[in-house]
Protein backbone atom coordinates (compact mmCIF):
# COMPACT_ATOMS: atom_id res chain seq x y z
CA UNK A 1 0.00 0.00 0.00
CA UNK A 2 1.33 3.40 -0.92
CA UNK A 3 0.29 6.26 1.30
CA UNK A 4 -0.74 9.15 -0.89
CA UNK A 5 1.31 11.75 0.88
CA UNK A 6 2.08 15.11 -0.60
CA UNK A 7 2.46 18.62 0.67
CA UNK A 8 -0.54 19.69 -1.36
CA UNK A 9 -2.78 17.15 0.31
CA UNK A 10 -1.36 18.06 3.69
CA UNK A 11 -2.01 21.77 3.13
CA UNK A 12 -5.46 21.06 1.74
CA UNK A 13 -6.45 18.94 4.73
CA UNK A 14 -5.00 21.44 7.18
CA UNK A 15 -6.96 24.30 5.62
CA UNK A 16 -10.25 22.40 5.68
CA UNK A 17 -9.46 21.10 9.14
CA UNK A 18 -8.92 24.61 10.48
CA UNK A 19 -12.28 25.69 9.04
CA UNK A 20 -14.00 22.78 10.74
CA UNK A 21 -11.95 23.48 13.87
CA UNK A 22 -13.23 27.08 13.93
CA UNK A 23 -16.79 25.77 14.09
CA UNK A 24 -15.85 23.36 16.87
CA UNK A 25 -14.20 26.27 18.65
CA UNK A 26 -17.40 28.37 18.50
CA UNK A 27 -19.53 25.52 19.81
CA UNK A 28 -16.99 24.60 22.49
CA UNK A 29 -16.80 28.20 23.64
CA UNK A 30 -20.57 28.15 24.16
CA UNK A 31 -20.24 25.12 26.46
CA UNK A 32 -17.43 26.76 28.41
CA UNK A 33 -19.22 30.08 28.88
CA UNK A 34 -22.34 28.46 30.33
CA UNK A 35 -20.21 26.19 32.48
CA UNK A 36 -18.22 29.10 33.87
CA UNK A 37 -21.19 31.35 34.54
CA UNK A 38 -23.65 28.74 35.80
CA UNK A 39 -21.44 26.00 37.13
CA UNK A 40 -23.38 23.45 35.08
CA UNK A 41 -22.62 21.71 31.83
CA UNK A 42 -25.47 22.40 29.43
CA UNK A 43 -25.71 19.83 26.67
CA UNK A 44 -28.21 21.98 24.80
CA UNK A 45 -25.59 23.40 22.37
CA UNK A 46 -26.79 20.93 19.71
CA UNK A 47 -30.25 22.47 19.92
CA UNK A 48 -28.83 25.90 19.11
CA UNK A 49 -27.03 24.38 16.10
CA UNK A 50 -30.21 22.76 14.79
CA UNK A 51 -32.36 25.85 15.24
CA UNK A 52 -29.69 28.10 13.77
CA UNK A 53 -29.47 25.99 10.61
CA UNK A 54 -33.18 25.27 10.16
CA UNK A 55 -34.46 28.76 10.94
CA UNK A 56 -31.92 30.29 8.56
CA UNK A 57 -33.04 27.75 5.93
CA UNK A 58 -36.67 28.77 6.52
CA UNK A 59 -36.01 32.49 6.28
CA UNK A 60 -33.44 32.41 3.50
CA UNK A 61 -34.32 29.47 1.23
CA UNK A 62 -38.09 29.34 1.78
CA UNK A 63 -39.07 32.94 2.37
CA UNK A 64 -36.38 34.59 0.31
CA UNK A 65 -34.93 36.83 3.00
CA UNK A 66 -31.37 37.77 2.11
CA UNK A 67 -28.81 35.50 3.73
CA UNK A 68 -27.16 38.16 5.89
CA UNK A 69 -30.50 39.48 7.20
CA UNK A 70 -31.72 35.94 7.81
CA UNK A 71 -28.61 35.07 9.84
CA UNK A 72 -28.82 38.29 11.87
CA UNK A 73 -32.51 37.68 12.63
CA UNK A 74 -31.92 34.05 13.56
CA UNK A 75 -28.95 34.87 15.76
CA UNK A 76 -30.95 37.54 17.59
CA UNK A 77 -33.89 35.18 17.98
CA UNK A 78 -31.74 32.36 19.30
CA UNK A 79 -30.00 34.69 21.75
CA UNK A 80 -33.46 35.48 23.12
CA UNK A 81 -34.35 31.79 23.14
CA UNK A 82 -31.20 31.13 25.20
CA UNK A 83 -32.23 33.78 27.71
CA UNK A 84 -35.77 32.36 27.79
CA UNK A 85 -34.58 28.78 28.38
CA UNK A 86 -32.42 29.94 31.25
CA UNK A 87 -35.20 32.08 32.68
CA UNK A 88 -38.07 29.61 32.32
CA UNK A 89 -36.38 26.25 32.87
CA UNK A 90 -32.84 26.35 34.23
CA UNK A 91 -33.41 29.08 36.80
CA UNK A 92 -36.20 27.12 38.49
CA UNK A 93 -33.82 24.23 39.03
CA UNK A 94 -31.00 26.33 40.40
CA UNK A 95 -30.23 25.63 44.01
CA UNK A 96 -32.98 23.06 44.40
CA UNK A 97 -32.00 20.35 41.96
CA UNK A 98 -28.75 18.39 41.88
CA UNK A 99 -26.25 19.63 39.29
CA UNK A 100 -26.55 16.43 37.33
CA UNK A 101 -30.34 16.79 37.22
CA UNK A 102 -29.85 20.11 35.44
CA UNK A 103 -27.54 18.41 32.91
CA UNK A 104 -30.26 15.83 32.27
CA UNK A 105 -32.84 18.56 31.79
CA UNK A 106 -30.65 20.14 29.10
CA UNK A 107 -30.49 16.76 27.35
CA UNK A 108 -34.28 16.59 27.56
CA UNK A 109 -34.55 20.03 25.99
CA UNK A 110 -32.18 18.92 23.23
CA UNK A 111 -34.27 15.82 22.49
CA UNK A 112 -37.43 17.93 22.43
CA UNK A 113 -35.79 20.34 19.98
CA UNK A 114 -34.65 17.47 17.74
CA UNK A 115 -38.20 16.09 17.61
CA UNK A 116 -39.68 19.49 16.98
CA UNK A 117 -37.24 20.14 14.13
CA UNK A 118 -37.86 16.72 12.56
CA UNK A 119 -41.63 17.14 12.87
CA UNK A 120 -41.52 20.58 11.26
CA UNK A 121 -38.96 20.07 8.51
CA UNK A 122 -38.73 16.30 8.14
CA UNK A 123 -35.66 14.08 7.94
CA UNK A 124 -34.65 14.78 4.33
CA UNK A 125 -31.55 16.95 4.02
CA UNK A 126 -32.55 20.44 2.91
CA UNK A 127 -30.64 22.75 0.67
CA UNK A 128 -30.08 26.38 1.54
CA UNK A 129 -27.43 26.82 -1.14
CA UNK A 130 -24.06 28.32 -0.58
CA UNK A 131 -24.31 31.99 0.14
CA UNK A 132 -20.54 32.18 -0.30
CA UNK A 133 -20.58 30.37 -3.63
CA UNK A 134 -18.67 27.20 -4.38
CA UNK A 135 -15.58 28.85 -5.78
CA UNK A 136 -12.10 28.22 -4.52
CA UNK A 137 -9.17 30.49 -3.92
CA UNK A 138 -5.84 29.02 -4.90
CA UNK A 139 -2.97 29.51 -2.54
CA UNK A 140 -0.18 27.90 -4.51
CA UNK A 141 -1.39 24.41 -5.19
CA UNK A 142 -3.86 24.44 -2.30
CA UNK A 143 -7.48 25.21 -3.14
CA UNK A 144 -9.38 26.85 -0.30
CA UNK A 145 -13.12 27.25 -0.69
CA UNK A 146 -14.75 30.63 -0.20
CA UNK A 147 -16.87 29.04 2.46
CA UNK A 148 -13.84 28.02 4.49
CA UNK A 149 -12.37 31.50 4.19
CA UNK A 150 -15.64 33.00 5.37
CA UNK A 151 -15.87 30.55 8.25
CA UNK A 152 -12.32 31.23 9.43
CA UNK A 153 -12.69 35.00 8.90
CA UNK A 154 -16.00 35.27 10.76
CA UNK A 155 -14.71 33.10 13.57
CA UNK A 156 -11.70 35.36 14.04
CA UNK A 157 -13.96 38.44 14.12
CA UNK A 158 -16.42 36.80 16.53
CA UNK A 159 -13.67 35.60 18.86
CA UNK A 160 -12.05 39.04 18.83
CA UNK A 161 -15.41 40.65 19.65
CA UNK A 162 -15.96 38.31 22.57
CA UNK A 163 -12.43 38.83 23.80
CA UNK A 164 -13.00 42.61 23.90
CA UNK A 165 -16.40 42.08 25.54
CA UNK A 166 -14.97 39.90 28.30
CA UNK A 167 -11.93 42.06 28.82
CA UNK A 168 -13.51 45.50 28.99
CA UNK A 169 -17.29 45.50 29.24
CA UNK A 170 -19.03 45.68 32.55
CA UNK A 171 -20.90 42.43 32.00
CA UNK A 172 -17.72 40.76 30.77
CA UNK A 173 -15.79 41.73 33.88
CA UNK A 174 -18.77 40.58 35.96
CA UNK A 175 -18.76 37.23 34.18
CA UNK A 176 -15.07 36.73 34.82
CA UNK A 177 -15.65 37.61 38.47
CA UNK A 178 -18.44 35.04 38.70
CA UNK A 179 -16.19 32.45 37.09
CA UNK A 180 -13.47 33.22 39.62
CA UNK A 181 -15.64 33.15 42.76
CA UNK A 182 -19.40 32.94 42.41
CA UNK A 183 -20.39 33.73 46.00
CA UNK A 184 -17.98 36.65 46.33
CA UNK A 185 -19.28 38.07 43.03
CA UNK A 186 -22.87 38.02 44.24
CA UNK A 187 -21.78 39.63 47.49
CA UNK A 188 -20.39 42.48 45.36
CA UNK A 189 -23.85 43.13 43.99
CA UNK A 190 -23.33 41.35 40.66
CA UNK A 191 -26.68 39.97 39.58
CA UNK A 192 -26.53 36.20 39.03
CA UNK A 193 -29.60 36.49 36.81
CA UNK A 194 -27.95 38.90 34.38
CA UNK A 195 -24.72 36.89 34.20
CA UNK A 196 -26.52 33.60 33.61
CA UNK A 197 -28.95 35.07 31.09
CA UNK A 198 -26.09 36.65 29.15
CA UNK A 199 -24.10 33.40 29.20
CA UNK A 200 -27.04 31.53 27.64
CA UNK A 201 -27.52 34.26 25.05
CA UNK A 202 -23.83 34.07 24.07
CA UNK A 203 -23.90 30.26 23.90
CA UNK A 204 -27.00 30.55 21.69
CA UNK A 205 -25.34 33.05 19.36
CA UNK A 206 -22.20 30.93 19.00
CA UNK A 207 -24.19 27.72 18.46
CA UNK A 208 -26.54 29.31 15.92
CA UNK A 209 -23.66 30.71 13.87
CA UNK A 210 -21.89 27.35 13.84
CA UNK A 211 -25.17 25.69 12.88
CA UNK A 212 -25.64 28.01 9.90
CA UNK A 213 -22.11 27.36 8.66
CA UNK A 214 -22.63 23.62 9.00
CA UNK A 215 -25.94 23.76 7.15
CA UNK A 216 -24.70 25.26 3.91
CA UNK A 217 -24.62 22.97 0.90
CA UNK A 218 -20.84 22.57 0.80
CA UNK A 219 -20.98 21.32 4.37
CA UNK A 220 -23.63 18.72 3.56
CA UNK A 221 -26.88 20.68 3.77
CA UNK A 222 -29.35 21.19 6.57
CA UNK A 223 -29.89 17.83 8.29
CA UNK A 224 -31.18 16.70 11.65
CA UNK A 225 -27.74 15.23 12.26
CA UNK A 226 -26.14 18.67 12.58
CA UNK A 227 -26.37 18.54 16.34
CA UNK A 228 -23.87 15.67 16.36
CA UNK A 229 -21.19 18.30 15.91
CA UNK A 230 -22.06 19.63 19.36
CA UNK A 231 -21.12 16.30 20.90
CA UNK A 232 -17.93 16.21 18.89
CA UNK A 233 -17.26 19.73 20.22
CA UNK A 234 -17.37 18.37 23.76
CA UNK A 235 -14.01 16.84 22.93
CA UNK A 236 -12.31 20.26 22.57
CA UNK A 237 -14.14 21.48 25.68
CA UNK A 238 -12.61 18.70 27.78
CA UNK A 239 -9.36 18.88 25.81
CA UNK A 240 -9.07 22.55 26.75
CA UNK A 241 -9.72 21.90 30.41
CA UNK A 242 -13.48 22.52 30.70
CA UNK A 243 -13.35 26.10 31.94
CA UNK A 244 -10.69 27.64 29.73
CA UNK A 245 -12.05 29.64 26.78
CA UNK A 246 -8.61 29.74 25.15
CA UNK A 247 -8.29 26.00 25.71
CA UNK A 248 -11.64 25.43 24.03
CA UNK A 249 -10.56 27.39 20.95
CA UNK A 250 -7.20 25.64 20.67
CA UNK A 251 -8.92 22.32 21.32
CA UNK A 252 -11.45 23.05 18.57
CA UNK A 253 -8.72 23.72 16.02
CA UNK A 254 -6.71 20.64 16.99
CA UNK A 255 -9.74 18.37 16.84
CA UNK A 256 -10.86 19.85 13.52
CA UNK A 257 -7.49 19.29 11.89
CA UNK A 258 -7.17 15.81 13.42
CA UNK A 259 -10.57 14.90 12.02
CA UNK A 260 -9.65 16.00 8.50
CA UNK A 261 -6.30 14.21 8.68
CA UNK A 262 -8.18 11.06 9.65
CA UNK A 263 -10.51 11.57 6.69
CA UNK A 264 -7.56 12.02 4.35
CA UNK A 265 -5.00 9.56 5.64
CA UNK A 266 -6.81 6.75 7.44
CA UNK A 267 -6.68 3.50 5.44
CA UNK A 268 -9.92 2.42 3.85
CA UNK A 269 -10.05 -0.64 6.05
CA UNK A 270 -10.88 1.68 8.97
CA UNK A 271 -14.26 2.32 7.37
CA UNK A 272 -15.82 5.37 5.81
CA UNK A 273 -17.02 7.05 8.99
CA UNK A 274 -13.74 6.75 10.84
CA UNK A 275 -13.00 10.48 10.77
CA UNK A 276 -16.12 11.28 12.79
CA UNK A 277 -14.73 9.20 15.65
CA UNK A 278 -11.48 11.15 15.57
CA UNK A 279 -12.55 13.89 18.05
CA UNK A 280 -13.16 11.24 20.68
CA UNK A 281 -9.84 9.54 19.98
CA UNK A 282 -8.03 12.87 20.42
CA UNK A 283 -9.96 13.37 23.63
CA UNK A 284 -9.06 9.91 24.86
CA UNK A 285 -5.35 10.40 24.22
CA UNK A 286 -5.30 13.84 25.87
CA UNK A 287 -7.06 12.58 28.96
CA UNK A 288 -4.57 9.74 29.27
CA UNK A 289 -1.62 12.14 29.15
CA UNK A 290 -3.08 15.22 30.82
CA UNK A 291 -6.29 14.46 32.72
CA UNK A 292 -6.94 18.10 33.65
CA UNK A 293 -6.97 19.11 29.98
CA UNK A 294 -4.61 21.33 28.07
CA UNK A 295 -5.16 24.60 29.95
CA UNK A 296 -7.18 23.25 32.86
CA UNK A 297 -6.05 23.48 36.42
CA UNK A 298 -5.60 20.48 38.63
CA UNK A 299 -8.41 20.36 41.13
CA UNK A 300 -7.17 20.01 44.65
CA UNK A 301 -9.80 18.60 46.94
CA UNK A 302 -9.59 18.78 50.65
CA UNK A 303 -9.62 15.27 52.02
Amino acid sequence: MILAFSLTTLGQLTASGLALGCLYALIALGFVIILKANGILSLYQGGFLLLGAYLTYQLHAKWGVSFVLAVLAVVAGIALLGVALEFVVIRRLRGSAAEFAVVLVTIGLLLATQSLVAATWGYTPLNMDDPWGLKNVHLGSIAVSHRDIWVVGSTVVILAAFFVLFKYSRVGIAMRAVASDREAAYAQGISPNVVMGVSWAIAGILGALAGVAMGTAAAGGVTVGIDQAAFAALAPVIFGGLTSPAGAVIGGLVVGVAQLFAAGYAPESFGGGFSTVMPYIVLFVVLLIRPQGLLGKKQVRRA
Partner: protein
Amino acid sequence: MTVAPFLEIEKLGVQFGGIRALSDVSFICQRGELLAIIGPNGAGKSSLFNALTGVYPADGRITFDGRPLIGRRPAEIAHLGIARTFQNVGLFEPLSVLDNVLIGRHVLMRGGVAAGALWIGRAKREDRAARLHCHELLHLLDLRQYKDEPVRSLPFGIKKRVELARALAAEPSLLLLDEPVAGMNSDESRAISELVLRLWESMSLTIMLVEHDMPVVMSIAQNVLVLDFGKVIGYGAPDEIKRNPRVIEAYLGVADDTDSVVERSLHEALS
Protein backbone atom coordinates in the same frame (compact mmCIF):
# COMPACT_ATOMS: atom_id res chain seq x y z
CA MET B 1 -38.21 64.16 67.64
CA THR B 2 -35.45 61.62 67.85
CA VAL B 3 -33.53 60.69 64.73
CA ALA B 4 -33.74 56.98 63.87
CA PRO B 5 -30.36 55.29 64.26
CA PHE B 6 -28.36 54.63 61.09
CA LEU B 7 -27.95 50.95 61.85
CA GLU B 8 -30.02 49.26 64.50
CA ILE B 9 -29.56 45.61 65.36
CA GLU B 10 -32.15 43.99 67.61
CA LYS B 11 -32.00 40.49 69.05
CA LEU B 12 -29.91 39.23 66.17
CA GLY B 13 -29.31 35.48 66.13
CA VAL B 14 -27.42 33.17 63.79
CA GLN B 15 -27.71 29.42 64.09
CA PHE B 16 -25.83 26.63 62.30
CA GLY B 17 -27.42 23.30 63.07
CA GLY B 18 -27.02 23.01 66.83
CA ILE B 19 -24.43 25.76 67.13
CA ARG B 20 -25.58 29.22 68.03
CA ALA B 21 -23.02 31.55 66.45
CA LEU B 22 -24.82 34.70 67.60
CA SER B 23 -27.64 35.11 70.06
CA ASP B 24 -29.60 38.10 71.25
CA VAL B 25 -27.14 40.64 69.85
CA SER B 26 -28.49 44.19 70.01
CA PHE B 27 -26.67 47.45 69.41
CA ILE B 28 -26.83 50.70 67.50
CA CYS B 29 -24.33 52.27 65.14
CA GLN B 30 -24.80 55.97 64.40
CA ARG B 31 -24.10 57.61 61.07
CA GLY B 32 -20.47 58.65 60.87
CA GLU B 33 -19.39 56.39 63.72
CA LEU B 34 -16.27 54.23 63.72
CA LEU B 35 -17.30 51.19 65.71
CA ALA B 36 -14.86 48.40 66.49
CA ILE B 37 -15.98 44.85 67.20
CA ILE B 38 -13.62 42.73 69.23
CA GLY B 39 -13.79 39.37 70.92
CA PRO B 40 -11.85 36.13 71.23
CA ASN B 41 -11.70 33.70 68.30
CA GLY B 42 -15.08 32.19 67.55
CA ALA B 43 -16.91 34.98 69.37
CA GLY B 44 -19.13 35.59 66.34
CA LYS B 45 -17.50 38.71 64.87
CA SER B 46 -17.38 37.48 61.30
CA SER B 47 -20.80 35.86 61.71
CA LEU B 48 -22.13 39.30 62.57
CA PHE B 49 -20.74 40.68 59.30
CA ASN B 50 -22.10 37.71 57.37
CA ALA B 51 -25.56 38.22 58.89
CA LEU B 52 -25.42 41.94 58.08
CA THR B 53 -24.51 41.30 54.45
CA GLY B 54 -27.07 38.54 53.94
CA VAL B 55 -24.52 35.73 53.58
CA TYR B 56 -25.85 33.88 56.65
CA PRO B 57 -29.57 33.55 57.34
CA ALA B 58 -30.37 35.26 60.62
CA ASP B 59 -33.27 35.97 62.92
CA GLY B 60 -34.07 39.13 64.82
CA ARG B 61 -34.07 42.53 63.22
CA ILE B 62 -31.56 44.68 61.36
CA THR B 63 -32.65 48.13 60.27
CA PHE B 64 -30.24 50.00 58.03
CA ASP B 65 -31.07 53.56 57.07
CA GLY B 66 -34.76 52.85 57.73
CA ARG B 67 -34.85 49.57 55.74
CA PRO B 68 -35.01 46.03 57.12
CA LEU B 69 -32.09 43.86 55.98
CA ILE B 70 -32.98 40.38 57.18
CA GLY B 71 -34.10 38.15 54.34
CA ARG B 72 -32.41 40.23 51.65
CA ARG B 73 -29.85 38.66 49.34
CA PRO B 74 -26.18 39.78 49.44
CA ALA B 75 -26.48 41.56 46.08
CA GLU B 76 -29.46 43.61 47.28
CA ILE B 77 -27.64 44.59 50.45
CA ALA B 78 -24.62 45.67 48.40
CA HIS B 79 -26.94 47.89 46.38
CA LEU B 80 -28.28 49.47 49.57
CA GLY B 81 -24.82 50.86 50.30
CA ILE B 82 -23.05 48.32 52.49
CA ALA B 83 -19.60 47.23 51.34
CA ARG B 84 -17.18 44.92 53.11
CA THR B 85 -13.75 43.43 53.10
CA PHE B 86 -12.99 39.87 54.16
CA GLN B 87 -10.70 38.42 56.78
CA ASN B 88 -8.90 36.25 54.22
CA VAL B 89 -9.34 38.63 51.27
CA GLY B 90 -12.27 37.90 48.95
CA LEU B 91 -10.83 39.28 45.73
CA PHE B 92 -11.15 37.82 42.25
CA GLU B 93 -7.66 36.37 41.98
CA PRO B 94 -7.31 35.98 38.17
CA LEU B 95 -8.62 39.49 37.49
CA SER B 96 -6.50 42.62 37.41
CA VAL B 97 -6.45 45.12 40.26
CA LEU B 98 -8.37 47.62 38.14
CA ASP B 99 -11.04 45.07 37.19
CA ASN B 100 -11.49 44.11 40.83
CA VAL B 101 -12.03 47.73 41.80
CA LEU B 102 -14.36 48.29 38.82
CA ILE B 103 -16.53 45.43 40.05
CA GLY B 104 -16.95 47.29 43.33
CA ARG B 105 -18.20 50.22 41.27
CA HIS B 106 -20.74 48.17 39.33
CA VAL B 107 -23.43 48.49 42.00
CA LEU B 108 -23.68 52.18 41.15
CA MET B 109 -24.11 51.67 37.41
CA ARG B 110 -27.54 51.64 35.84
CA GLY B 111 -26.91 51.38 32.09
CA GLY B 112 -28.23 48.26 30.37
CA VAL B 113 -26.23 45.13 29.68
CA ALA B 114 -26.61 45.33 25.91
CA ALA B 115 -25.78 49.05 25.85
CA GLY B 116 -22.69 48.30 27.94
CA ALA B 117 -21.61 45.51 25.61
CA LEU B 118 -22.11 47.72 22.55
CA TRP B 119 -20.38 50.67 24.26
CA ILE B 120 -23.18 53.14 23.57
CA GLY B 121 -25.35 55.69 25.37
CA ARG B 122 -25.58 56.03 29.10
CA ALA B 123 -23.68 52.80 29.71
CA LYS B 124 -20.68 54.23 27.86
CA ARG B 125 -20.69 57.47 29.86
CA GLU B 126 -21.10 55.52 33.09
CA ASP B 127 -18.26 53.24 32.16
CA ARG B 128 -15.94 56.16 31.48
CA ALA B 129 -16.90 57.81 34.77
CA ALA B 130 -16.41 54.52 36.64
CA ARG B 131 -12.94 54.01 35.22
CA LEU B 132 -11.98 57.56 36.10
CA HIS B 133 -13.23 57.16 39.65
CA CYS B 134 -11.42 53.84 40.08
CA HIS B 135 -8.18 55.32 38.82
CA GLU B 136 -8.50 58.05 41.44
CA LEU B 137 -9.07 55.47 44.15
CA LEU B 138 -6.03 53.49 43.04
CA HIS B 139 -4.04 56.70 43.25
CA LEU B 140 -5.41 57.47 46.71
CA LEU B 141 -4.52 54.01 48.01
CA ASP B 142 -1.14 54.06 46.29
CA LEU B 143 -2.02 51.12 44.06
CA ARG B 144 -1.55 52.66 40.63
CA GLN B 145 1.59 50.72 39.83
CA TYR B 146 -0.30 47.42 40.25
CA LYS B 147 -3.30 48.48 38.12
CA ASP B 148 -2.96 45.80 35.44
CA GLU B 149 -1.44 43.05 37.57
CA PRO B 150 -3.58 40.02 38.28
CA VAL B 151 -4.40 40.04 41.97
CA ARG B 152 -3.05 36.55 42.50
CA SER B 153 0.49 37.76 41.86
CA LEU B 154 0.42 40.37 44.65
CA PRO B 155 1.57 40.07 48.27
CA PHE B 156 -1.06 39.84 50.99
CA GLY B 157 -0.63 43.39 52.25
CA ILE B 158 -1.27 44.86 48.79
CA LYS B 159 -4.29 42.58 48.35
CA LYS B 160 -5.74 43.99 51.55
CA ARG B 161 -5.44 47.50 50.08
CA VAL B 162 -6.99 46.39 46.79
CA GLU B 163 -9.91 44.98 48.70
CA LEU B 164 -10.31 48.25 50.55
CA ALA B 165 -10.26 50.09 47.21
CA ARG B 166 -12.92 47.74 45.83
CA ALA B 167 -15.15 48.35 48.86
CA LEU B 168 -14.69 52.12 48.58
CA ALA B 169 -15.45 52.10 44.85
CA ALA B 170 -19.08 51.34 45.70
CA GLU B 171 -19.20 54.63 47.63
CA PRO B 172 -20.76 52.77 50.55
CA SER B 173 -22.52 54.55 53.38
CA LEU B 174 -21.52 51.69 55.68
CA LEU B 175 -18.13 50.02 55.36
CA LEU B 176 -17.46 46.71 57.10
CA LEU B 177 -13.77 45.90 57.55
CA ASP B 178 -12.93 42.36 58.67
CA GLU B 179 -9.45 42.37 60.20
CA PRO B 180 -7.82 44.89 57.84
CA VAL B 181 -4.39 44.59 59.49
CA ALA B 182 -4.32 40.83 60.11
CA GLY B 183 -1.00 39.29 59.13
CA MET B 184 0.78 42.63 58.87
CA ASN B 185 3.82 43.86 60.72
CA SER B 186 3.48 46.85 63.00
CA ASP B 187 4.62 49.38 60.37
CA GLU B 188 2.16 48.08 57.81
CA SER B 189 -0.66 47.94 60.31
CA ARG B 190 0.03 51.48 61.44
CA ALA B 191 -0.03 52.63 57.82
CA ILE B 192 -3.34 50.87 57.18
CA SER B 193 -4.99 52.16 60.34
CA GLU B 194 -3.88 55.70 59.48
CA LEU B 195 -5.28 55.19 55.99
CA VAL B 196 -8.61 53.92 57.35
CA LEU B 197 -8.79 56.88 59.69
CA ARG B 198 -8.00 59.30 56.87
CA LEU B 199 -10.62 57.76 54.57
CA TRP B 200 -13.18 57.73 57.37
CA GLU B 201 -12.69 61.45 57.92
CA SER B 202 -12.43 62.55 54.31
CA MET B 203 -15.28 60.44 52.93
CA SER B 204 -17.66 60.84 55.91
CA LEU B 205 -18.01 57.06 56.13
CA THR B 206 -19.58 54.94 58.79
CA ILE B 207 -17.20 52.09 59.56
CA MET B 208 -17.59 48.86 61.49
CA LEU B 209 -14.25 47.24 62.09
CA VAL B 210 -13.46 43.73 63.31
CA GLU B 211 -9.88 43.65 64.53
CA HIS B 212 -7.64 41.66 66.81
CA ASP B 213 -4.93 44.27 66.95
CA MET B 214 -5.80 46.06 70.19
CA PRO B 215 -3.50 49.06 69.79
CA VAL B 216 -5.17 49.72 66.43
CA VAL B 217 -8.67 49.30 67.86
CA MET B 218 -8.05 51.41 70.92
CA SER B 219 -6.44 54.20 68.93
CA ILE B 220 -8.99 54.64 66.14
CA ALA B 221 -12.39 53.40 67.38
CA GLN B 222 -14.97 55.76 68.83
CA ASN B 223 -16.89 52.89 70.36
CA VAL B 224 -16.11 49.24 70.93
CA LEU B 225 -18.51 46.32 70.95
CA VAL B 226 -17.22 43.16 72.63
CA LEU B 227 -18.57 39.75 71.71
CA ASP B 228 -17.91 36.47 73.46
CA PHE B 229 -19.57 33.14 72.64
CA GLY B 230 -22.00 34.93 70.34
CA LYS B 231 -23.22 37.38 72.96
CA VAL B 232 -22.53 41.05 73.62
CA ILE B 233 -20.49 41.33 76.81
CA GLY B 234 -19.46 44.94 76.57
CA TYR B 235 -20.11 48.15 74.70
CA GLY B 236 -18.64 51.58 75.15
CA ALA B 237 -15.78 53.98 74.49
CA PRO B 238 -12.30 52.39 74.34
CA ASP B 239 -11.41 53.68 77.80
CA GLU B 240 -14.48 52.10 79.35
CA ILE B 241 -13.87 48.83 77.56
CA LYS B 242 -10.33 48.64 78.91
CA ARG B 243 -11.74 48.74 82.42
CA ASN B 244 -14.75 46.45 81.84
CA PRO B 245 -14.22 43.41 84.11
CA ARG B 246 -16.22 41.05 81.86
CA VAL B 247 -14.10 42.00 78.88
CA ILE B 248 -10.88 41.50 80.80
CA GLU B 249 -12.12 38.13 81.98
CA ALA B 250 -13.17 37.05 78.49
CA TYR B 251 -9.75 37.87 77.12
CA LEU B 252 -7.54 36.95 80.04
CA GLY B 253 -9.58 34.39 81.94
CA VAL B 254 -9.35 31.68 79.34
CA ALA B 255 -6.03 29.95 78.95
CA ASP B 256 -6.27 29.37 75.24
CA ASP B 257 -3.13 29.33 73.16
CA THR B 258 -4.83 30.53 70.02
CA ASP B 259 -5.69 33.79 71.72
CA SER B 260 -2.30 34.40 73.25
CA VAL B 261 -1.49 37.06 70.68
CA VAL B 262 -4.71 38.85 71.45
CA GLU B 263 -4.09 38.55 75.17
CA ARG B 264 -0.65 39.98 74.83
CA SER B 265 -1.84 42.87 72.74
CA LEU B 266 -4.69 43.55 75.15
CA HIS B 267 -2.22 43.46 78.02
CA GLU B 268 -0.12 46.00 76.21
CA ALA B 269 -3.13 48.15 75.49
CA LEU B 270 -4.37 47.89 79.07
CA SER B 271 -1.08 48.58 80.75
